């Protein structure tokens, strides 16, 4: 059962990384225009003006 002392911190770290990524996405305002983002992938323009 000693393996648990590695696995639990590792799983928590991985989950925490996911949470951190979610926070980053939230702060980078990636949830502001879900419909627009869904449509933009269809346009062939090269988007060299990311969100201000």
């Amino acid at each position: 059962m000693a393996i648990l002392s590695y696995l639990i911190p590792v799983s928590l770290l991985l989950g925490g990384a996911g949470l951190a990524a979610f926070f980053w996405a939230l702060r980078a305002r990636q949830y502001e225009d879900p419909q627009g983002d869904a449509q933009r992938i269809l346009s062939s323009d090269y988007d060299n003006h990311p969100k201000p």
Partner: protein
Amino acid sequence: MVDVAADMHLPVSACPACAAAPAACAVAQQAARGGLLLSLPAIHCAICISDVERALSHHRGVRSARVNLTLKRVSVVAEPTVTATELITCLAQIGYEAHELDQTVLSLTQTDKAGRDLLMRIGVSGFAMMNIMLLSVAVWSGADHATRDLFHWISAAIALPTVIFAARPFFASALGALRARRLGMDVPISLAIILATGMSFYETTQAGHHAYFDAAVMLTFFLLVGRYLDFRTRAVARSAAQELAALEVARATRLRDDGAEEDIPVADLCPGDRLRLRPGARVPADAVIETGRSEMDRSVLSGETLPVTVGPGDSLCAGEVNLTGPMQLRVTAAGRDSALHRMADLVAHAESARSKYTSLAERAARAYAPIVHLLALSSFAVWLWFSRDMRLSLNVASAVLIITCPCALGLAVPAVVTSASGRLFRRGMLIKSGTALERLAQVDTVVFDKTGTLTLGEPQPVDLPKLDPRALSVAAALAQGSAHPLARAVASGASALGVVPALLENLHEIAGDGIAATYQGQPVRLGRAQWVGCDSVAATATYLRVGQACHVIRCTDQLREGAAEVVSALINQGIHVLLVSGDAPATVQDLAQKLGIAQWHGAARPEDKARVIANATANGAHVLMVGDGLNDTVALSTAYVSISPASALDAARAASDIVLMGASLMPVVQALHVARSARRRIKQNFAIAAGYNMIAVPVALAGLATPLGAALAMSASSISVSLNALRLKSGR
């Protein structure tokens, strides 16, 4: 600023400057960057996004343009020299309609912040829920002694900070409810979360068997999801409503003492100011005419379709529209004292009466909260009496609280309202009030306003084809010279018939009377009966005189798209339909007969309209009012629920629960249908939640509840409630 924060249910900072400073900075930054915000009602696809962004970024002085399709807006960063008007023309050239948005009216940053805050809490509690659930699976499958204790301790280390951070909205609102000596839905929620976490922590320190950390965090997660859905629905409606308000920036032209004109916001007007009023402009404040003659369109105030002639010394009310001549006015009452504002006071009074409506969720919470608390308390007392074991009794009591916790109830209403209002939003209806759908479902009487609601408020000439070609071409030529609604109607009716206007000389308009000219050496006139010298008829009409011959051009108001269908659909559903208008009784009767409405009231003043509705309400009817004018605002807010078209005045839209975004009235019938099925769905959801409790509560009372059972019951009820709500979206 502080008011905005209070509206948003954000904690109001102890120091107003602290709250104001960041917002002020944001505004200043926006201004420094030269930010402009345009509303684009027509965009809907990837190509629209590319078109708009390409056109704007190729415009001189524009640094960047970014479309937000969800909000149907484009934000433009540009040099300070670039104005919104030139961007609007630029977009109009490639075929996109655009409007400037007043950024001060849109409190975007606050809404965004509150939404992000809730999402972050959902993220944290979701992360914690999944991890604790994984650890709990090991405990449920039989881990014991040291392993179980280790897992409980790790769960505690995750759950405690999560509950403190993520469940704060519930604690805050429960505290608010208790201070007001009420038991809302949030009091049992907070109690269950706190008791579950506290008891589990105590059990963990005592190396106990059962810990409910997973239940406490799962509860927080599901309830936060419900809260977020609720918030999103309201935020979408509010931003669209603010957008409507931001579109009309009210301004007035003030005359300075040196005779120069200046353009100022209506809010800055004072009594005694002198104003210039151009034809086509709305009167910005109550005023007296100093010089000039004209005709006023009072339809928004009184519902009358016929313009009224006014001259020096006559007083005007804010909201009327000047039709023909330029005038100089002196303001008698502005802002708080104006007629417009007195109407707003009446509306506020009527609205406070309506806010007494208790929503289904509130009624459920009111019945539910005392029962839950009594159950938990009595189970604690009974177990303590028989077992004399404090720890066991507390465990049973907290298990009862967790099992009965209104997880499903918290989702039952928001999930349904979100999917129903999303469906109506796509059909062009904006639900402004959270309980509007529930109230709409109960409607059994519909009261319509005439001018601007069932009709477009724009007259159409009916006698034109009967005129001889010569008179017709003279009428067309005369009508082109005026902005009067009847003249415009004649001009557009004639051009639709393909009439070539006659060549006239000496064309001039006499404000309040009509237009005169000379045609082939003989005088011709188009205008009021007396002035033209014809016998008047009892209908809305304009008169034409060519030489000695007199012609009457009768006009009728055109029906709004879908008006006839809506009325007949409502009557077929067994709903009582009334027509109440401020217009002349003969015109109202005419329309009522045309549409098959049995009961109608003409020449009704705003108070009369409200009284008709109040009488119906007193007889037990649930009245839906559909209206658009200022004269309807009191009636709109007296009614049980109210709808106004987007073309309505700002005050009328503010007073109504639902705004129709399109030109057609047809969505009213669909809204009634969706509202009824939403109400049914909400009640079903309550039944599902109650059913789960019926099975689980006896188990918990018997002391047989386990953390696994609690987790299963809770997720099963939440998921079935959400799925039931989604059925509304797919169902036809």
